[in-house]
């Protein structure tokens, strides 16, 4: 009896996770592995030609393609601008909101979170109009004070405009997580620091940031991953323009796979993107671990 009970206890965990594992295998693992296999084949969805094994051919083509590197560079620019800005501003907002108490805090939390509830199509179309140089909302007001910004028409402005829009759209989620992290810190630490004569800045540097490090790591890593996968904003607002300055890697993959129907080549680029994300995530984890 005891042995049977032990055996049941040993395997009961599997029974609980089995439904998830089945779904995970069917809808994530299988397509992932299928995509990996596909990346070694030349398969053009519309071509009647038989699928052909070409080894590393698709990877070779991607690594020698100007468009691949242009779009990788555009993605890197987005990641470098969006991630520090999101984490920094979200941290500032979280700390600010934390000082507000009661219902007003709930109001601010909801206000920053609300834009993220809009679908990217709605948010993207709205901002396309806001940003239009001649007939848009922002320049209509700015022109009254003699300023006209080429939001989407200048290659140096376009990616910044996408980042600003993304901040408006995504900041809420990061703010809420960081706020929760800040609220986990025991008040006694601040009281002790205050008794030792520490000011607000020292408390921030020596208590808040170190205590929030795991949450900050989580927000930074998820943000880097999300930023590498940016697509909706650029596809709707700029379609990759002007002059490819906002054509990010996911858009190039989408166009290759679903407009040009080159599924093998598209899959190979997906795996290269996965490699980039994995590389930066591991570096991030290692850097945070060392500091700890």
């Amino acid at each position, binding site marked *: 009896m005891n042995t049977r009970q032990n055996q049941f206890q040993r395997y009961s965990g599997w029974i609980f996770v089995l439904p998830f594992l089945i779904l995970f295998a069917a809808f994530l693992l299988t397509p992932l592995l299928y995509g990996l296999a596909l990346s070694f084949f030349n398969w053009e*969805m*519309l071509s009647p*030609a038989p699928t052909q094994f070409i080894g590393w051919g698709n990877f070779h083509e991607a690594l020698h393609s100007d468009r691949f590197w242009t779009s990788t560079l555009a993605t890197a620019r987005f990641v470098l601008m969006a991630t520090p800005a999101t984490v920094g501003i979200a941290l500032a907002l979280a700390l600010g909101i934390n000082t507000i108490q009661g219902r007003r805090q709930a109001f601010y939390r909801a206000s920053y979170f609300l834009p993220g509830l809009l679908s990217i199509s709605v948010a993207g179309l709205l901002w396309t*109009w806001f940003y239009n140089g*001649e*007939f848009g909302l922002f320049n209509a007001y700015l022109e009254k004070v003699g300023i006209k910004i080429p939001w989407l*028409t200048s290659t140096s402005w376009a990616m910044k405009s996408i980042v600003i829009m993304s901040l408006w759209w995504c900041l809420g989620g990061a703010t809420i997580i960081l706020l929760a992290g800040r609220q986990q810190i025991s008040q006694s630490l601040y009281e002790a620091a205050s008794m030792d004569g520490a000011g607000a800045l020292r408390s921030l540097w020596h208590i808040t940031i170190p205590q929030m490090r795991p949450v900050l790591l989580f927000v930074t890593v998820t943000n880097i991953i999300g930023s590498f996968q940016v697509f909706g904003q650029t596809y709707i607002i700029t379609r990759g323009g002007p*002059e*490819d300055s906002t054509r990010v890697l996911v858009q190039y993959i989408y166009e290759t796979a679903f407009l*040009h129907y080159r599924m093998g080549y598209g899959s190979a680029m997906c795996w290269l993107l996965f490699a980039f994300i994995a590389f930066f995530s591991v570096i991030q984890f290692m850097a945070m671990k060392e500091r700890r």
Partner: protein
Amino acid sequence: MTGSSKFLMGRVRGAVVVAALCMGLLGAACSRQDRPEVTLRFWNGFTGPDGRPMQQLVKEFNRENPDIRIIMQRMDWYTYYNKLFVAGIGGRAPEVFIIHASNIPRFIHADFLRPMDDLLEKEMGLDPKDFFPQAWNAAGDGGKQYGIPLDISIHGMYYNKSLFRAAGIVDATGEPRPPRNQKEFMEALRKLTLDRDGDGDMDQWGFVFTNTRNNLLVLMVQFGGMFFDRDNRQCLLNSEGNVRALTWCRDLIHREKLVPSPENFIAWLGFRQGNVAMAFEGIYMLADLQKQTDLDFGVAPIPTIGEQPATLASSHIVCLRRDLKNPELQAASRFARFLTDRSLDWAAAGQVPARLSLLQSDRFRSMEAQATFAQQLDHVFYEPNQPFNNQFDTEFNEAVEKALRNSETPQAALDRAVANTQRAVRRHYDLWDQAKNASSEKSSGL
């Protein structure tokens, strides 16, 4: 009656009511199940103002044909084509669907479409001669007909009547006079592009590029340009006419400073706001504009800017799934016939019907704006429709953007686009040859 018998009677009455309800529901379900013999899925991308009239047509068909049930599904065109392809590959494509004429060759190559030649006369009772020839031909390939054109989506010129009157561009009767050629267009442009407050920024534009791809296709053909050779083996985008058209557009922006640098489709919003006097756009914009009561607009043929009149057109083509069998096939044929018969109702929402007999009807002539667009039928051209059209579009858009932004000369931009397109063309034909060899090896092995 004792308490327990009352309770019993109550239970019996309750059971009878429940049983009756169940029978009723069962009966209703059975009769609903009995009614339509065939259910067809009908997919399209009419998510704009054109969605409502199509929905209405489907409703009417379902009412008039109780043995057939059409279930319409709409999604935006970008998502639509992806879903349609994936569904087709998975063998779950809808029985009836709409595709643009430019997509016909790609769908034929993917073997998704059922040729309709055997259905045209027998099942549908349609005469090919009753269709606008270019629309009809756009749905055919290699002597086979793969679809029925529903309409002709022509591009024309929209102009703001109030701005024309204010600029004094009127005829003898005081009515606004839209330009007909390059000279009149330039004169109008100079009068209609205004910097009212003198701050160096234009407050009103005479013309804007609302869709650079479509606008440039029109102008390139007007300047005598071509896109591919007869065999579709060589891209001719850098031909002399195309270079001249692109140069003319670039000069309009950077030398004359009469047109803003193209940005995105929001430029069309400028026309709707009343800040733009002229725009070249498709007839599909008509339905929305007609609802806007504070805009006094007119439509006219696109002026002849180049050496020859030309405007862009496309058609929505009704297609059937490749493996369709009876009774679905018969039902789908009836539905396709119904749609083309009722294409005047469809035209009322902002289209030109593809049936010549309907084009000549009094009802169509009374549709003033649509009839004006139809005046250009003599010189319409259908957009390039090669199987590698999407790759061509990518290169075309990039070249046009670079030239119009003046970061590359039109000649250099178009040369690069041709080189890149040729790579896609070569890949396409290489694969095509491979497929042919594979099938001939297979048949010789048999």
